[in-house]
């Protein structure tokens, strides 16, 4: 187990990166604490798998250093880094039994047979494959195969971290829940440092204590699921997390108030801004209230999801989503107001921090 630091890591897959856009990873500085459960969340192509492969050593970063517990491992091979990695598609050695699969990494490292058997038995217990230990691995279902991939990482008693690269992609929906619960359980019981790459926000938010959101080769926010939800630090995070995503509406500033058309809402303080940035407010649909006052809207669509209704409307030429709870009425002449608790101000897409009074 180890603390993992990425220091000023940049990576380009092409030969001569010039502009920022040539870099798959533009600039990554990130610490993964020992024993933490992290999720790397972002859309396809945002660089999350690159980060994972740089940690495991499958990819050498173009620039920057990787440290495990303060020790520079950037030039160490994957094998020496002692990392476990589970891939999108289960990797099993077809010709071996489940037991042989699990013993394989130990055999390669010259671990004594008795010790290897003991570890393999432990892991079989952990991943719940004891009854199938002597079966050929190739006949198993996808989720069992994925458990074997994971198990091959767990057998090494000294793994520095377990990395997951969208491990549940090929797993049946109902098995996903079960496997994810088992992963959490493993984390809780054994305290592995786990980093989990996914583009599925539900997976990320339920798995991780700390979610690292990536966008276009950069980390845009690191935080607890609550942070990401309440205080998205970039409009991208607001869009990407939550369903429907955050409403982003252009605004103008009026002292310590924001103004959208005729509507004025108070800010927690006077924002300090440099230059003349593009200003927007971000409001989660959960904080949009519907009533007889505020900004007049035309409702375009109502989705009834049972306990909540999602109302889509047009206000001042902008599409806005609002979440109505059970019992909330849609008035005949609908207007919306914003709950000040859920109001965020964005300057050039980055959240303006009113230090002190919101953290």
């Amino acid at each position: 187990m180890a603390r993992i630091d990425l220091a000023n890591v940049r990576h380009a897959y092409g030969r001569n990166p010039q502009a920022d856009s040539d870099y798959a990873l533009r600039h990554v500085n990130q610490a993964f604490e020992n024993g933490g459960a992290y999720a790397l969340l972002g859309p396809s192509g945002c660089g999350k798998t690159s980060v994972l492969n740089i940690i495991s050593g499958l990819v050498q970063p173009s620039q920057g250093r990787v440290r495990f517990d303060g020790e520079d491992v950037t030039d160490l091979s994957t094998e020496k880094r002692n990392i476990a990695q589970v891939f999108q598609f289960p990797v099993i050695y077809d010709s071996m039994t489940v037991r042989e699969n699990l013993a394989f990494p130990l055999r390669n490292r010259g671990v004594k047979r008795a010790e290897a058997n003991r570890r393999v038995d432990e892991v079989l217990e952990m991943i719940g494959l004891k009854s199938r230990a002597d079966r050929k691995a190739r006949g198993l279902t996808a989720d069992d195969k994925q458990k074997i991939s994971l198990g091959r990482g767990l057998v090494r008693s000294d793994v520095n971290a377990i990395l997951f690269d969208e491990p549940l992609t090929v797993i049946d929906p109902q098995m996903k829940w079960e496997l994810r619960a088992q992963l959490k359980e493993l984390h809780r019981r054994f305290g592995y440092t786990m980093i989990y790459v996914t583009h599925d926000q539900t997976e990320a938010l339920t798995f991780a204590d700390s979610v690292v959101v990536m966008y276009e080769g950069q980390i845009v926010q690191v935080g607890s699921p609550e942070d990401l939800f309440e205080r998205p630090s970039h409009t991208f995070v607001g869009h990407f997390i939550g369903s429907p995503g955050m409403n982003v509406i252009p605004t103008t500033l009026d002292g310590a108030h924001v103004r959208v058309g005729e509507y004025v809402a108070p800010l927690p303080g006077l924002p300090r801004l440099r230059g003349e940035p593009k200003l927007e407010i971000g409001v989660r649909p959960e904080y949009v209230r519907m009533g007889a006052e505020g900004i007049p809207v035309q409702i375009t669509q109502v989705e009834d999801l049972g306990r909540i209704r999602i109302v889509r409307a047009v206000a001042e030429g902008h599409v806005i989503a609002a979440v109505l709870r059970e019992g909330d009425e849609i008035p005949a002449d609908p207007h919306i107001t914003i709950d000040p608790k859920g109001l965020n101000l964005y300057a050039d897409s980055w959240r303006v921090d009113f230090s002190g009074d919101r953290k």
Partner: protein
Amino acid sequence: MKPVNQKAWFLVLPVLLLVAISAVIPLMTVVNYSVQDTFGNNQFFWAGTSWYEKVLHSERFWNALLRDLMFSAIILAIEIPLGVIVALAMPRKGWGVAVCLVLMALPLLIPWNVVGTIWQVFSREDIGLLGGALKGMGVDYNAVQDPVDAWVTLIVMDVWHWTSLVTLLAYAGLVSIPDAYYQAARIDGASGWSVFRFIQLPKMARVLTIAVLLRFMDSFMIFAEPFVVTGGGPGNTTTFMSIDLENLRASNELGQGAAMSLIYFLIILLFSWIFYAVMTREDAPRPDKAPDKTGGAP
């Protein structure tokens, strides 16, 4: 009750016709010849199993069969490992792939008898490059008069002609292995040999089965090359079964030829079945296991 309609059988009629014309009718003609005797004038007499008995009791037949088996065994033992080694050495990406694939495909595009002619000329000691060069180096080489030289020539020729087929099949198996397997192997600390033994070889097993089958059947039926290069000689040291058949046909031994053809056919069928059964044995579904829904990587 659903209405039952048998008209769907008409849909398979074209296939039946095709198979009948291309396989069943010729085969039955041969069967017909094999149980009859003729003294010309298109008069035939019932001969029972006497032709079969004659073939099975002739030393000539068993010797030819032995030669076939030996030839197949030798070329399989050379071509399969060699093909795999070449496939492993081929580049996986970049411009080299196209170059290698074209080079590998070239020998396969040359017809059998042309290959035979090329090698026949190539190995002649008076005008052939190989024969001449060997003679110049003081090697006593003569594919037409020395049995060992004749065999070596035929084997080298076959290896030259057909190893690329094995290579191409093995290469297809190799490139279908997802990168994640190699990455996982690095994480598991697997050696190069382990990667070959536990990832590449199992993933190639299926295509190699096909390669073995194809090469076995082809080499067992070898005809054009020895016919052109050695003519079955010297003596009858390279008289394979197909050459023997040709000899029977040339001397109008219809009944014996037909009986031998059928035995030959049954032997190939038997060997192919054995190969197939052995090499696919592990894939047979066991009753106690759940079906694999994903089948692994796409």
